[in-house]
């Protein structure tokens, strides 16, 4: 069998206010904006950590596939507002530094840095679209 060479290239998170989401990932988490296409609410914004060009997050408008019904679209919008739709897990060696930066901004904190009994230390907060961003400490 031939070994496959596949990397995880782009992950997706929905936005409902493209400018607010882009500002959050750029100004609070320090990501670079790699591309920004479309206009109005129909914006596709690629962001990612500086120095790691091979991994990106695409901030995209939710539920725009024409195969999605009106009911499904409403459900997705409601789940985003409820905070039960999008989430992502990030990691950093400096959890406390990142958390202080996040707390100093307007971000809604869900969990302060906590030592979990199952062997990791992590924190959690919301991005402007209500996605749960969980960050765990690399150690």
């Amino acid at each position, binding site marked *: 069998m031939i070994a496959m060479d596949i990397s995880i290239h782009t992950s997706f998170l929905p936005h409902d206010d493209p400018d607010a989401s882009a500002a959050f990932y750029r100004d609070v988490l320090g990501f670079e904006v790699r591309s920004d296409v479309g206009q109005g609410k129909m914006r596709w914004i690629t962001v990612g950590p500086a120095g790691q060009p091979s991994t990106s997050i695409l901030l995209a408008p939710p539920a725009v596939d024409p195969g999605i019904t009106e009911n499904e679209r409403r459900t997705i*919008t*409601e789940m985003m*507002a*409820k*905070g039960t739709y999008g989430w992502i897990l990030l990691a950093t060696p400096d959890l406390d530094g990142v958390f202080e930066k996040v707390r100093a901004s307007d971000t*809604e*904190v*869900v*969990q*302060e840095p906590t030592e*979990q*009994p*199952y062997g990791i230390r992590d924190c*959690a907060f*919301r991005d402007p679209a*209500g996605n749960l961003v969980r960050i765990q400490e690399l150690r």
Partner: protein
Amino acid sequence: MCLPAWGRARMTAQHLSDLARLRRVRDRIDREYAQPLNVEALARGAGMPPGHLSRQFRLAYGKSPYAYLTARRIERATALLLNGDLGVADIRRMVGCSSPDVFRTHFTELVGMPPRAYRHRAVDTVADMRPWVPEQAAKTAGLTGTRA
């Protein structure tokens, strides 16, 4: 044609901002479960009457804020019981439950056995015992309630 559409858009925006307000209540429970929280304090923080908050929260999340808070505390307690040497009373206080009886009752209702039995079984079962997760138990537990 325009006016009803505007009305609908306004209602949708209001509905979504109400849901976002409930999300902040839920996040506050996740953040502050270890403190002496109750529905009155949560309602005050959210700027809505307690009864209204409970009803809307249950509509959105399928259980009342009190049931969600309790499930969060018990979930955290199971994790602490599985790992570490803390006593049951210490763990109960750490997760924000002041009454031993209430803690024991809720724990037994949600997990299916009292805290001490849970820990003993964890010690006996050397194989991995995962912390109990509320969503998995939601179907069987009366406390979590049903979607209204």
